[in-house]
């Protein structure tokens, strides 16, 4: 070590400190893996259900065709599905956010009822990572390119 220039000693010291620091950070993040989740997925809630009445959040996709409104006009019933097809029925009374539609993501804040229904006090709409203009809605990129091609046929 004594043969090293002070500059190189400092460099080695700082790099070692950084490696230790990043290691500690990664370990902390790994330990937080399950605690820092903002919500339960339906499959997590089915595998390891929270206590009945405990305040939790449930997140997933609103199942297509499952959304119904009760006769009182403010109670919504729908099912939230996870990645592996598991589903949890949800009941919510109140005003849903604009982005809340079938087939989109939702985070419901509430508690599990004894009958397995999730009773939500609050709904948060989850936006996905896709940003698509209105005109191209529902089109895959290939379809969109094809349409663009068709509509420009004959235009020089």
């Amino acid at each position, binding site marked *: 070590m004594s043969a090293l220039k002070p500059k190189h000693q400092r460099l080695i010291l700082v790099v070692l400190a950084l490696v230790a620091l990043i290691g*500690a950070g990664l370990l902390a993040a790994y330990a937080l893996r399950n605690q820092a*989740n903002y919500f339960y997925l339906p499959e997590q809630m089915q595998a390891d259900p929270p206590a009945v009445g405990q305040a939790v959040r449930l997140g997933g996709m609103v199942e297509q065709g499952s959304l119904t409104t009760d006769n009182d006009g403010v109670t919504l019933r729908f099912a939230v599905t996870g990645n592996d097809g598991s589903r949890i029925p949800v009941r919510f009374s109140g005003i849903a956010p604009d982005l809340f*539609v079938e087939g989109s993501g939702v985070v419901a804040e509430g508690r599990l009822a004894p009958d397995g229904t999730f009773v939500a006090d609050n709904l948060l709409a989850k*936006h996905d990572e896709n*940003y*698509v203009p209105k005109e191209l809605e529902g089109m895959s990129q290939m379809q969109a390119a094809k349409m663009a091609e068709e509509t420009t046929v004959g235009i020089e």
Partner: protein
Amino acid sequence: MHGFANPKRFLTLASWLTPLLLMAGLVLSAGALWWGLTQVSPDRLMGETVRILFLHVPAAWLGMGGWTAIAISSLVYLVWRHPLAALAARAAAVPGLVFTLICLVTGSIWGRPTWGTWWVWDGRLTSMLVLSFLYAAYIALAQAAAREGVSARIPAIFGLVGAINIPIINRSVVWWNSLHQPPSITMGNSAIDGEYLAPLLVAVVGFSLIFGGIVLARMRALLADIQAEARLRRRASEAV
């Protein structure tokens, strides 16, 4: 690289680079914002609120980029002891904090109509809020160290340690379930339609140039401060 550590050479470079970066950045950012705010069509789900994207995303990237700059400058200062590196780290802190705050405020305004809430304590939002606190602490520490004449090594170590938050912010939406959506732009892939992506990238370049210009301007101001103080001290000792 070592050549630019000479303050005199740095000042001649910065004196023409600063206005160039600021002007080019202002033109590009203004153009990108005009493009994004008036020319692109509304999003299929969010409608008009998608336009916040063009301010929110560049601000978020620069908030994180600012701390990355602090960390790299701190490393250079600790290892090579270049005084200019300590100044660069100090100069990057205030614009970094401003961009982080812009990101938090625009995100909150965006969250209300799209998610239905101003704020949630999920991984992404919380780690970004922590970043703004780190900036505030760094600014206070660096100023105190400069005022008291303590070594700039203390804020430099803080700058390096705080850098651990940057990968956490970046990965927060991947590691944990969060209300914030996962990244739209990953290595070579974009889930953002080209119509939005083009003005977004122009805005990122424009805001980055402004950031660079502000850092250079603040470094010049800090250098001038140090020189003025040294001159005053010299005069005071001559007068005695």
